[in-house]
């Protein structure tokens, strides 16, 4: 009797300890995550009231690009906090998988690093009764060129040099092409270890598109391929794998989303675009480059054609735009209110503002306004 009571007491004491520990931990966690949006803790709860739930309920399934997964996590967290009884489930299984699932009717919307191809649009008509799948750009992000080189802090490269490095045409750090762009930097006579993605990825595809636009003479590979087209260099699995590899090897260079560079404290290359000063890889600079994009989609489709060769001041041209793909007409009736409410929040000023905290770039005003007008018309 006495023994068991003692045990009970101890158990509850441990329980209390665990709970309080968890509270402390989660408190820290949310503080860290919301740093930029926080500005006084209360704003998140005040802001949460701005999310319009509009009859959102039940479960909303989505899948696709892993590049926007962190953005989705932020949105889902805020949206679920504001709208009771709603569960949004986004699986970062890759753009290809997301589009396949969307076209099979398994998910309400897909996330993708590239706009739907013609045949995918044709296929989407089976699911979207009376409509088609449309591309709604919602998350942008700079692709950082990260490097590790002792004693060199602000490396500047241009598109042609980047192309030659990743194509292993430039193999030494003190190559004249690099020293010319970096007067005064102490560049060693060591080999460049260029890392690329070993898996297929929208990040690779966007780098390819950038290089074949901005450095057409030095990058002759198929710009559409999602797998690495060049024969040389070394590879690692996933953005995190490339970041890990670059972090671990002196004299290495690789490409990944900016968040990986921030998380691993990897220095990033500033790109000489022809503007008056080299442009650093930041969310803000990426937004400026996306603003130079043209909308190539028609009707409700807002597929973008990025201007990779932009010379606008402070525009970082190596960017990735990810789309949410949903039906313009013929969405499933039971998930439609939730879908609209969620996408409404995502593209709202508030939803976009959250993005910078995870090193993503918000959509520039003009494009955001266009998407904002379309989301409420989804049916």
């Amino acid at each position, binding site marked *: 009797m006495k023994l068991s009571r003692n045990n009970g007491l101890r158990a509850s004491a441990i329980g209390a300890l665990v709970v309080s520990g968890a509270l402390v931990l989660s408190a820290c966690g949310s503080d860290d995550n919301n740093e930029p949006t926080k500005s006084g803790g209360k704003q998140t709860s005040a802001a949460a009231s701005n999310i319009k739930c509009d009859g959102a309920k039940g479960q909303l399934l989505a899948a696709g690009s*892993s590049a926007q997964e962190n953005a989705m996590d932020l949105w889902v967290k805020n949206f679920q906090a504001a709208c009771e009884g709603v569960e949004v489930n986004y699986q970062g*299984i*890759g*753009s*290809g*998988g997301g*589009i*396949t699932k969307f076209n099979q009717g398994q998910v309400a919307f897909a996330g993708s690093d590239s706009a739907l191809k013609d045949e995918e649009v044709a296929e989407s008509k089976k699911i979207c009764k009376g409509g088609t799948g449309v591309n709604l750009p919602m998350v942008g992000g700079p692709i950082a060129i990260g490097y590790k080189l002792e004693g060199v802090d602000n490396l500047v490269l241009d598109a042609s040099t980047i192309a030659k490095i990743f194509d292993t045409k430039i*193999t030494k750090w003190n190559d004249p092409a690099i020293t010319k762009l970096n007067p005064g930097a102490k560049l060693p006579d060591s*080999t460049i*270890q260029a*890392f690329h993605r*070993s*898996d*297929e*990825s*929208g990040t690779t595809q966007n780098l390819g598109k950038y290089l074949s636009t901005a450095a057409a003479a030095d990058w002759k590979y*198929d710009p*559409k*391929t*999602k*797998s*690495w*087209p060049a*024969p*040389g*260099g*070394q*590879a*690692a*699995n996933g953005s995190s*794998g490339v970041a*890990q*590899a670059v972090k*671990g*090897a002196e004299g290495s260079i690789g490409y990944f989303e900016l968040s990986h560079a921030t998380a691993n404290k990897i220095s990033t290359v500033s790109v000489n675009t022809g503007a008056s000063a080299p442009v650093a890889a930041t969310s803000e600079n990426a937004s400026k480059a996306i603003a130079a994009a043209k909308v190539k989609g028609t009707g409700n489709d807002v597929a973008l054609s990025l201007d990779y060769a932009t010379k606008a001041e402070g525009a970082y041209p190596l960017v990735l735009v990810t789309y949410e793909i949903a039906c313009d007409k013929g969405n499933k009736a039971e998930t439609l209110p939730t879908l609209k409410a969620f996408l409404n929040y995502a593209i709202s000023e508030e939803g976009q503002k959250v993005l910078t905290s995870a090193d993503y770039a918000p959509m520039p005003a003009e494009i955001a306004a266009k998407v904002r007008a379309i989301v409420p018309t989804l049916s």
Partner: protein
Amino acid sequence: MVTTTPPAIKNRSRRAKSAARPGDRIFSGLSKGSGITLLVIMAAIAAFLTYRTVLAVSKDSTNFFTTFEWNPAGDPPVFGIAVLAFGTVVSSVIAMAIAVPVAIGIALFISHYAPRKLAKPLAYVVDLLAAVPSIIYGLWGAIFLVPYLDGLNQWLDQYLGWTYIFDKSADGVARNLFTVGILLAIMILPIITNVTREVFLQAPKMHEEAALALGATRWEVVRMAVLPFGRSGIISASMLGLGRALGETMAVAVVLSPSFVLSGHLLDPGGGTFAQNIAAKFNEANEFGRDALIASGLVLFVITLLVNGAARWIIARRKEYSGANA
């Protein structure tokens, strides 16, 4: 004696007759059903793989077996398994070359040399090695093993570079087929060790004692009584290990720096394996790309089938020599 035998036979036949009881019928039905289910599942997998393979390969613009490229999304689609088949076989062979002798050594040590106090914990630790998930091996390989193998690679390049296979012709860290082979060796070690240990433990005590009585040393006992008895066990254990090495996915995907270049220089980063390539390409692949990957999966399926068949054949051929019939 003679009088008691016929009743025993009678008894047995009565028991055989009672097989018609419901419990027996259910049991035999269940076991037959399990056997048939397995065959149906295997047939279904093979049929699925073959169907998707035909879809993919019929549209391949080049030879599926000899092409050094993987671009099913291209126009026209180009993909082939030459590099994958080479990488899969080479990394598995390296793994086997390292793992089999070491595993036999460990198994012999546990079964015949180690004091009992040491043998038990050691066997337990080897079992534990098998319980580590392959992604953990992969991360350990990529973060810990690779930097430490750089030195070994340079040494091999310097002193054994003349062998061509150890000639390091491209710069880069040790994310190559050789490293993958070492990692796979560690991963298949517990399987081979456990099975061979069990076989060695079953070596007939009478044989061993007879050898000892003839004045054999401990090594001679092992050589004359234990190893011949365990030979088929060693082979089947090795084949189990080889099966795992051939199909290992995540660890290879994390450690290897893949490329579609077929190179005999094992220390150069590059190459690839079937499972690694599927893991790396599946997420972003479209329908057709997936079919192409499934086609490569079918090739791996066939290779594994051949390896297992060969192992069965060798064991069957050697059965008469093994002590199992003694």
